[in-house]
């Protein structure tokens, strides 16, 4: 039971990293979303193998219960993650409306004056 969750976590991390290294910002967005969900699944994994254990409700059974704490942690992490993802979507949209593209190579053109002068200009 645990081994397939471990494999799934690994696959999610791999897919997330692969997408995050793409040139297109939308792919990067999806990659980051996958990465943060892979991390959530990893935390859930820390409650151990649920096979043969009772649901964590007091008074229903005398068997060993599943550890409920990782589920509470993951709930918090999911809420935070969705907030961050919302921000990231707006940020990508902002970059799209600034530069008219989501291609990272066009957003950061490799020109020599880009790195030194563009940063120092006073913002209006």
């Amino acid at each position, binding site marked *: 039971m645990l081994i397939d969750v471990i494999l799934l976590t690994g696959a999610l991390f791999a897919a997330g990293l692969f997408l995050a290294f793409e040139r297109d910002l939308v792919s990067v967005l999806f990659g980051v979303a996958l*990465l943060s969900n892979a991390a959530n699944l990893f935390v859930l994994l*820390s409650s151990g193998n649920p096979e043969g254990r009772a649901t964590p409700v007091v008074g229903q059974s005398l068997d060993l219960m599943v550890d409920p704490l990782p589920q509470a942690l993951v709930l918090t992490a999911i809420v935070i993650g969705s907030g961050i993802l919302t921000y990231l979507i707006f940020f990508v949209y902002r970059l799209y409306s600034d530069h008219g593209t989501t291609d990272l190579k066009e*957003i*950061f053109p490799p020109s020599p004056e880009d790195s030194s002068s*563009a940063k*120092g200009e006073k913002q209006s």
Partner: protein
Amino acid sequence: MNTLVVPLLLPLLAAIFGLLLRRHVPLRKPLFLFSSVGQLAAALWIGGQTLQVGHLGLPLGGWAAPYGIILMADTLTAIMLCLSAATTLAATAYSSAEWWSEAEHPFRGPLLQFLTLGINLSFLTGDFFNLFVAFEVMLLSSYALLTLENHGGQARHNLSYVLLNIVGSALFLCAAGFAYGTWGTLNFAQLAERLAAESGSNRVFFFGLFCTGVFGLKAGIFPLYFWLPGSYPTLPIAVSGLFSGMLTKVGVYVLLRLYATILPHDLTELHHLMGWVSVATMIFGVLGAICQNTIRSVLSWHIISQIGYMTLCLGLFSEMAVTACILYITHHIIVKSSLFFIGGAAAQLNQTDDLRHMGGLWKSAPILGLFFLAQALSLAGIPPLSGFWGKYLIVVEGLAQDKIAFVVGSLVASVLTLFSMLKIWLGAFWGEQPEDRSSPFENRSQSFSFWGKAAVCGALVTVSLVIGLGMPFFLEIAQKAALDSMDQRRFIEFVFSLKGK
């Protein structure tokens, strides 16, 4: 000890009321100033208490450790709280001074308060997952502040900051999952107890290494620093003062807490690795600073180099080294944010941030020159300014432990720091005034704004001078903080003695 929630409640309430009072600018400014002054008072009071009794703690909701989340403070926490309150106060005051010359975004004030909430919570928390939440509060406000007031395609420079920190947060979550899955607890005290019980095992080493990576990313150590110099120069000056002072130092604080209070003290390989990484950080950071051409990017690269000094203390890891680290953090936060503010005032006078188009400030604003000189020499480590003492202790400790390479690295970085500070000095203060520049102040409000900013810089310079000249007093406090934070047995006993309901 209910006082411990004050540094959290004040910024939260101020931020919420600040959002409600969006259209009432005259009411908002005093609100944020009041909140920062209140935080400073609470932090000083907590500091006084911890000096007397050692540890303070508050089990939230009356749930005793290790089942509930606890807030806890020792002298180290109190020092960090004081610094964060002082920097927020300075940033808010500087922001108010800017109000005379240029309009700020109405969300800036509330977001600064949310940022402070996150920072204060990460100092006060005694729980690994709560620390994650604190980091997220802090990071989310920092993302918003980074993109809030950027125009003309500047926002793209923050992409690497945002993406790397999101990935860092995912890794942080994995570290928490690993700790809970392996040792069955997230409470600092219980974690310390259980880690000590299997001290020397590979799992403890791996956990330490993994956490070092996660918090090293937030602190900006080699080779994880490249998000920093791109994003900080795009911020408005008032915000960048707070960012440069506090944000990376939260990472350093957590590393310090981790090494001193949670991990067993015998992880010499990890400490040694940290030492080498730190030397690389300070050398690469200062070399980066030398080849920049704007005040803010020179200062941003300097942050990286200074982070190297702080983590080098963790690499040497002894009671003296931790004392040096605490002194260095104290010095650095004040000096770094005041340098950003001074740079901002200089940029207002010259109407540009680019060192190639500045000059002659020494004639038009000698007071700014004096402030800059005091802080820059302090950063380079000239006695008896505050920066000297931290570096002195590091060198003494490095020599005592026979780690010559670390000592040489830190001295070379120090000389190069002086060199790059001279670059700002020659570019902005010395030299000929550019001819095309009109009179510095177009109207009265510009001049008000400048003197307001100069007053904030002056206050920070005074604090920094007091720290440098009153070193025996501050050294004693730092020694107590180092002793308390490294005394794991007392910490564990204290946390488990906290009574819930």
